């Protein structure tokens, strides 16, 4: 399967992205489709906290947490976890699944509590603001409080909610990958080619989106 993928523009900047879905086979839980930057400079595949939490990756033990906090600095850490990464190929109408080890960005307990508290505060402020007259002092007061809460929220999210990176280990799933990046001023013309290695995909599925939906519905019924 040979693919030519033009760089994708996000906010006017073109970068090499693939559409991927992360899956935790232990819990049969899939992430939403997202963009992962293909990064030949990265030694690891990295996912943000929210994706790992959403698919129910196993939380680190106390020992693992301690091992990973040291050396990274601050209250930010990561943990290695196994998950399946699906890459969709629309040309062939197929989705290829690869078992990979990812580095899941994981916050300490205090940061998580802080984040949950801010989310709750934001929702409460939205409810209160909806009960006040637009343009009134009270309305503006809630607006200012919301802005402050959002700023605090963003500060944490900027650490935990990083982009998804597909690092070089993921390239082992390809027979080759080639970047055609000739002119930095015309990144809209850049593209990359890759070919999935026949023996590396552990699962090949039809691309029909209902496959993922069916799994979600089945999980709901079981619950």
């Amino acid at each position, binding site marked *: 399967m040979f693919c030519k993928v033009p760089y994708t523009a996000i906010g006017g900047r073109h970068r090499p992205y693939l559409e991927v879905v992360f899956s935790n086979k232990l819990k049969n839980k899939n992430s*939403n489709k997202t963009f992962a930057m293909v990064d030949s400079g990265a030694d690891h595949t990295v996912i943000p906290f929210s994706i790992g939490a959403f698919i129910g990756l196993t939380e680190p033990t106390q020992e693992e947490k301690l091992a990973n906090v040291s050396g990274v600095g601050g209250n930010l850490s990561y943990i290695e976890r196994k998950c399946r990464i699906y890459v969709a190929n*629309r040309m062939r109408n197929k989705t290829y699944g690869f078992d990979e080890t990812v*580095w899941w*960005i994981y916050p300490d307990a205090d940061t998580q509590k802080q984040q949950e508290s801010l989310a709750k505060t934001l929702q409460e402020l939205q409810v209160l603001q909806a009960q006040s007259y637009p343009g009134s002092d009270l309305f503006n007061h809630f607006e200012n409080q919301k802005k402050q809460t959002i700023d605090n929220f963003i500060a944490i999210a900027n650490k935990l909610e990083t982009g998804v990176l597909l690092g070089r280990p993921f390239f082992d799933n390809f027979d080759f990958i080639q970047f055609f990046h000739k002119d930095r001023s015309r990144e809209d013309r850049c593209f990359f080619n890759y070919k999935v290695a026949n023996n590396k995909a552990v699962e090949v599925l039809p691309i029909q989106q209902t496959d*993922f939906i069916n799994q979600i519905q089945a999980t709901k019924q079981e619950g």
Partner: protein
Amino acid sequence: MTDKEIIFNTPKNLDEFTDQFVIFFSEDAEPKVLFNSFIAEETYKKAEEIKIEQNREPVVIRVQKSNISNSITQMLSMRF
């Protein structure tokens, strides 16, 4: 080999949603932002609703200021 390309489209006005999670359909020629929020969990739940309602798989991304992975991710990903 094929000369066909796989193109992922994104909404044109993503700058308006800096620091937020957004949902859209990347296979649309001109995708529209279907939902936006600062809260990841809220966005993922909404994306599942949209997926079931419309029988299509939406994309969820966080629009970052730099639009590339931030320095923390880079640092982590480069650690041996």
